[in-house]
């Protein structure tokens, strides 16, 4: 009984409560397939509204898979699927605005998914990189590049039942007219900023 308690304590002590942000921790993460931890991931975009401020919205329903070998980061593959109808703007008075934005503007009525598939990964530093891939939005496919920062990794995360975990922040910009998004052009800036925070666990 005492031995079991000792072993449990040792195992729990080996589990991390907070990620290690060092490049060494990144390099020691296991290679293979990683799955997005949805409750700990966010996908936000913003556009300049009337030249006055950044209008912000989020997608609440999206998923991603990452194939990643820290010994060979350039071979990594990232795919993501986003439900356009899950856009959330928190409009204070118009309960139908999210459905209009997602269904009409973002193509959800015709195209049930927005997808991303990486085509190239480059490292730009010990904990930073750049992922280029094809984004398909409203049925139109065009390249998008994301600047990625590794925040931290854990070999055994208590939060994730002892699975390895890794977290990234990512930023990108796209031109909305490249995807045929020309409505409201007089109200909304051309450039769309994408802001991603994502935690993955080892499958």
């Amino acid at each position: 009984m005492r031995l079991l308690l000792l072993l449990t304590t040792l195992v729990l002590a080996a589990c991390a409560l907070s990620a290690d942000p060092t490049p060494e921790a990144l390099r020691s993460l296991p290679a293979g397939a990683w799955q997005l931890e949805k409750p700990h991931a966010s996908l936000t975009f913003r556009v300049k509204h009337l030249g006055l401020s950044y209008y912000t919205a989020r997608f609440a329903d999206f998923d991603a898979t990452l194939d990643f070998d820290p010994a060979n980061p350039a071979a990594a593959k990232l795919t993501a699927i986003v439900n356009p109808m899950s856009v959330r703007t928190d409009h204070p008075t118009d309960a139908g605005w999210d459905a209009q934005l997602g269904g009409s503007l973002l193509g959800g009525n015709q195209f049930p998914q927005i997808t991303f598939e990486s085509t190239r990964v480059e490292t730009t530093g010990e904990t930073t990189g750049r992922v280029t891939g094809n984004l398909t939005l409203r049925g139109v496919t065009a390249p998008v590049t994301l600047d990625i920062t590794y925040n931290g990794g854990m070999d055994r995360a208590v939060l994730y039942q002892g699975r390895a975990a890794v977290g990234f922040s990512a930023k990108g910009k796209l031109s909305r007219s490249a995807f045929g998004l020309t409505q409201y052009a007089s109200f909304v800036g051309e450039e769309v900023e994408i802001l991603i925070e994502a935690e993955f666990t080892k499958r």
Partner: protein
Amino acid sequence: MRSILAALAATALFAAPALAQTEAPAGQYVVDRTHATVMWKGLHQGLAWYPARFTNFDIQLTFDPADVTKSKVTATIDPKSIETDFARTRAAGNTTDFNAELATGERFFNAGKFPQITFASTAVTKTGANTGKMTGNLTFLGVTKPVTLDVTYIGNRNDPRVKKHKIGFQALGTINKTQWGMAPGGPIADNVQIEIHAEFVQK
């Protein structure tokens, strides 16, 4: 014909470059909640920045274009309006209302006991043509402490649809949540980023 001319005129007005800051009239402005975001981000276990926003808030601005350092801002935020989108991302069978836990939990915003988060500016300084720092007293969990936000003036224009002037800002800052009594060392790191995007309309 008249309606086409009106539409063209409206488009031209919206396409016109933003007027200079000093041309926004002095006086009282109120936040346009349809075009405003009040959010914070906390680093979750060193893995990724976890964002949440408040959807019910009021911000009042007394704007003095002749001397912006005389401008004043007050804000009231309803902590029960916190939104994390957790309900859209939780696993099937999970009925946790994480918004409610954050809003009313004693370890978090304790809204039952402290129904409002408030801010009142005490000083504004200019740091550049379109930038400044706004210091004020932030009160939540019954504790009042000063915070300083980096403010960027983005633009102003007369909105012909409502025949009123609008001004837009971005305000960014970092607070240490333990200064307001939140326990240190939890899953969200102590230094929390605050991000506000807001358009204000003349009263």
